[in-house]
């Protein structure tokens, strides 16, 4: 019972994912695309998560700038790490879906293009974090970039949507109710998976910081401690 209480979110995620997988394979396939259409139940929820994770990163970034509480920076960073994985998954699933259906790996559909650009935005955000050693500076710089990017992403989406509407008719077809229910179940399942992974990643980040603080307090690396009088000077004096 203790394990269930401790892992309640993961348990819930497993249940919902199991239900979603079962539904994905048992619901009738699209009459035009056939069974390959089922990959939509991975592609669309992944893309949804990619954007959700980025919104959470933005929320963490704003909260850090307002409070300078490290837990908000941990939230922003953890969500970005998870987001980049799901963004990659969304792109991959989209390409696997596109090839048999449209004969090419890439369709220039606005959501796919925006997801691809979001992938690079994530990579840039994580690369920025990696490049800064001091945790406070890292949090500050990353927070600024997280917010600026979040403001720009909707503009990116609408600009691609406009462009696409001029060059090609919208490929957004209506979905029958059974397929729509399966899709929503998939979105719910992925959201629980995201929440479960995020919770674990946040705990790991918190423990890493606590360990760092304990190590530091036990034997702090003092800036000038390693500097002594040069031995060459002493040798020259003796001579």
């Amino acid at each position: 019972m203790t394990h269930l209480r401790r892992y309640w979110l993961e348990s819930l995620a497993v249940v919902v994912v199991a239900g979603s997988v079962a539904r994905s394979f048992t619901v009738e396939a699209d009459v035009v695309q056939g069974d390959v259409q089922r990959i939509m139940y991975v592609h669309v929820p992944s893309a949804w998560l990619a954007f959700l994770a980025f919104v959470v990163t933005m929320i963490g970034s704003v909260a850090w700038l307002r409070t300078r509480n490290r837990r908000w920076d941990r939230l922003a960073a953890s969500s970005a790490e998870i987001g980049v994985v799901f963004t990659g998954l969304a792109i991959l699933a989209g390409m696997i879906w596109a090839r048999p259906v449209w004969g090419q790996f890439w369709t220039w559909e606005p959501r796919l293009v925006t997801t691809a650009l979001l992938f690079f935005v994530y990579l840039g955000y994580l690369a920025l974090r990696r490049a800064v050693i001091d945790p406070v500076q890292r949090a500050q710089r990353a927070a600024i970039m997280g917010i600026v990017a979040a403001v720009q992403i909707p503009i990116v989406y609408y600009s691609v949507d406009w462009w696409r509407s001029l060059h090609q008719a919208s490929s957004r077809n209506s979905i029958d109710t059974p397929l729509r229910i399966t899709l929503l179940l998939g979105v719910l399942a992925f959201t629980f998976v995201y929440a479960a992974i995020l919770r674990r990643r946040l705990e790991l980040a918190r423990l890493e910081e606590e360990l760092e603080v304990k190590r530091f307090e036990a034997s702090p690396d003092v800036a000038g401690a390693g500097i002594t009088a040069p031995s060459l000077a002493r040798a020259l004096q003796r001579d």
Partner: protein
Amino acid sequence: MNANSLVSLENVGLRIGNTLILRQAKFELEPGEKVGLLGPNGSGKTTLLRIIATLLRPTSGSGVVLGAELGTDAVYDVRHRIVMVGHLPGLYPELTLGENTRFVARLTGHPVDVADEALAMVGLAGASARRADQSSKGMLRRAELARALIIEPSLLLLDEAHAGLDAEAIGLVDGIAHQVVTAGGAVVLVSHEPDRLNVDRSVQITDGTLEAAS
């Protein structure tokens, strides 16, 4: 803490990443004081100076500089009363010494001939048209001291105060410091040459910890 203190630091510490640079620094600076900051390489002298200049936010402790609490937006209102001459020149290499000084004059609301007068007072009138990246270290330091003459700061902070200066120019440092303290301001000088410092008292920093030296 004395309410009239220009600088008051209480248990101020600075940690960057996993490196502790300054710890529990207690420091007071009164109007009219000249204080020397001594210590070996890597002891935290420049860090302390930058905290006093409000350029670094301490990671622990608290402090007030010219009435502004460190780490708050109030520091924006007092920075223009501080001049810090660091051990690396704060000049734009591609601009001439005259252009650099006039830039400071214009941004502090002074007419540009004040800049030219200041350069003349530090002995650089004839080098005004020389680019900063073609000037010697001593010339750059003199040009930076000209900045103190233009701004007339309440707080003058000099890192490696006499580095690169010839005998004539060392007197310049003392002269400018004297002007600042006479006007009710204060001066902090970092130096590796305690014998050359003309100060009221000195503070020693070792491994990020402050103690009175004399």
